[in-house]
């Protein structure tokens, strides 16, 4: 059986800067993998290449064994990848339900016009990520950073992904919010969701991942169980400054 997601020798160059340098790894269905490394290690660049927001210079990206390099971002999303961003990107003048509505929309103009929104599903998704009923009609400006991240999770889940890429999902959150998001990821994992999680918050990340991949200056420097990667000399030198 092929892996859920497989990256082979992925390279991304911005002029003379090599942002991703021959990175390869596999993600199996239902697995949760942490992608760690210092700032500028290339974690977000890898996410952007998987989503098709950045074109790789060379290398392969396979989703369930199928080469997706030529697919657009919406086409990749239709095939089951979803992503959240380091800085949440909500639709600022829309309320929570309307934001989720965009994620739930079919990519078909006729259906957009002639079929109404599924308000029950919008509400269900909002509540399932831990937003309160009082938040549903609030605009992003009225939400905390934790709620914005929940909203982004809900909008991503609305596209029905089988693999979610979470970028700095704990950044700017309080301890309580970290715990809520952690619980949500745990619940989704129990339902069979596959995760690739970028985070600088290692204590929060540890219980959520099966293994870790450490990057430094665009290269993969270690891969394995969380503890093992943390003990790795190269990781300590680059990431932990040890």
């Amino acid at each position, binding site marked *: 059986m092929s892996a859920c997601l497989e990256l082979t020798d992925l390279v991304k160059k911005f002029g003379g800067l090599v942002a991703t340098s021959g990175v390869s790894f596999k993600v199996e269905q239902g697995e949760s993998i942490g992608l760690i490394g210092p700032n500028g290690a290339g974690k977000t660049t890898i996410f952007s290449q998987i989503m098709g927001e950045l074109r790789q210079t060379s290398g392969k990206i396979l989703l369930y064994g199928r080469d997706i390099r030529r697919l657009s971002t919406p086409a990749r999303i239709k095939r089951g990848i979803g992503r959240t961003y380091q800085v949440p990107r909500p639709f600022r003048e829309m309320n929570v339900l309307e934001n989720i509505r965009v994620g739930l*929309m079919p990519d078909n103009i006729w259906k*957009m016009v002639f*079929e109404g929104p599924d308000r029950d599903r919008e509400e269900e998704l909002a509540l399932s990520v831990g937003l309160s009923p009082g938040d549903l009609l609030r605009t992003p400006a009225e939400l905390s950073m934790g709620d914005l991240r929940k909203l982004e999770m809900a909008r991503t889940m609305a596209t029905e992904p089988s693999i979610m890429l979470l970028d700095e999902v704990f950044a700017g959150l309080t301890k309580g919010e970290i715990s809520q998001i952690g619980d949500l990821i745990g619940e989704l994992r129990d339902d069979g969701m596959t995760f690739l999680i970028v985070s600088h918050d290692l204590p929060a990340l540890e219980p959520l991942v099966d293994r870790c991949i450490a990057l430094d200056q665009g290269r993969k420097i270690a891969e394995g169980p969380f503890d093992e990667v943390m003990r790795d000399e190269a990781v300590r030198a680059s990431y932990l400054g040890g």
Partner: protein
Amino acid sequence: MAVRGRHLALWGLFMAGGLLLPLLVDTGIIGRGTLRTIIMANFLAIFAMSWDVLSGRTGYISFGHPFLIGIGAYTTAILTRRFDVAVEYSIPIAVLVTMIGGAVLFIPALRIRGSYFALVTLAFMELVYQLVQVIRPDLTGGTRGMSGIVTLTKGAVQGYYLSFTLMALLGFFLWLLMKTRLGTALSAIGMNEDSVAGSGLNTTRLKLVAFMLGAFAAGLGGAFYVHYLGSIAPRALFDINFVFTIIVAALIGGAATITGPIFGAFFLTFLLEYLRPVLPGAERYLIYGGIALLVYMYQPGGLHKILEVGLERLRKRANP
């Protein structure tokens, strides 16, 4: 963004009121001059709504809207005046040709955004302005334009009924369409296009729909406008003041609302008309620019938002 009964009732009232308005002319409450001013406001509202669908929603600001209006106006003018095509055929053809123009205007939007896109659209308008003057002036009338174009109405009352019916039906159609999920998706593009793509939607197709819809409305408005006036003058049509009047009407009324540009168009047309006796020259534009700036600074959502907030306060006061 749902369609509520009270919204439909307001549209019904607006249409009924509009259709009954000419009765006041006979009673002497309003003059034919005022009716002519309303006709101009109706056409400006059509142009402002078409700009609103294209630019107000998606955030792709067009400074070259007369490019589309001009295609509609010139196509039907040439077909009827030079080739004796009946108006009932020339107007649909003009609308179709304008939609093709909308697709052409869309091409730069595939690669550029923001001020760069706005400048390219301005260049489109300038290009057509120069082209109609030098290419086949025997068809376009060159710098002098064309006159003697068949008119669809006689007198202010008929002109009013034509322009109002067109504006109200087009406005209702666009308003209804923008209340669907398509309207939500187009608004989302204006707020964050990358997030729309990140939600699995094909933004290129959505933008193309917005451009075609905007072109449809601009072409329809342009074609009927020329058959109302009976003439076409390139200098007045492809004028930067005309562009800004359309944009300011949409913004002052409230962009991305459809109904806002109608308020804005009426507000601006009457403001300019009432200022005419006091300030007959171009300095009137200074006054309207200043008022537009004040409204926009006070409430970027425009008159539509001011009205909405006011009504909400009244409702809260009535039901605390």
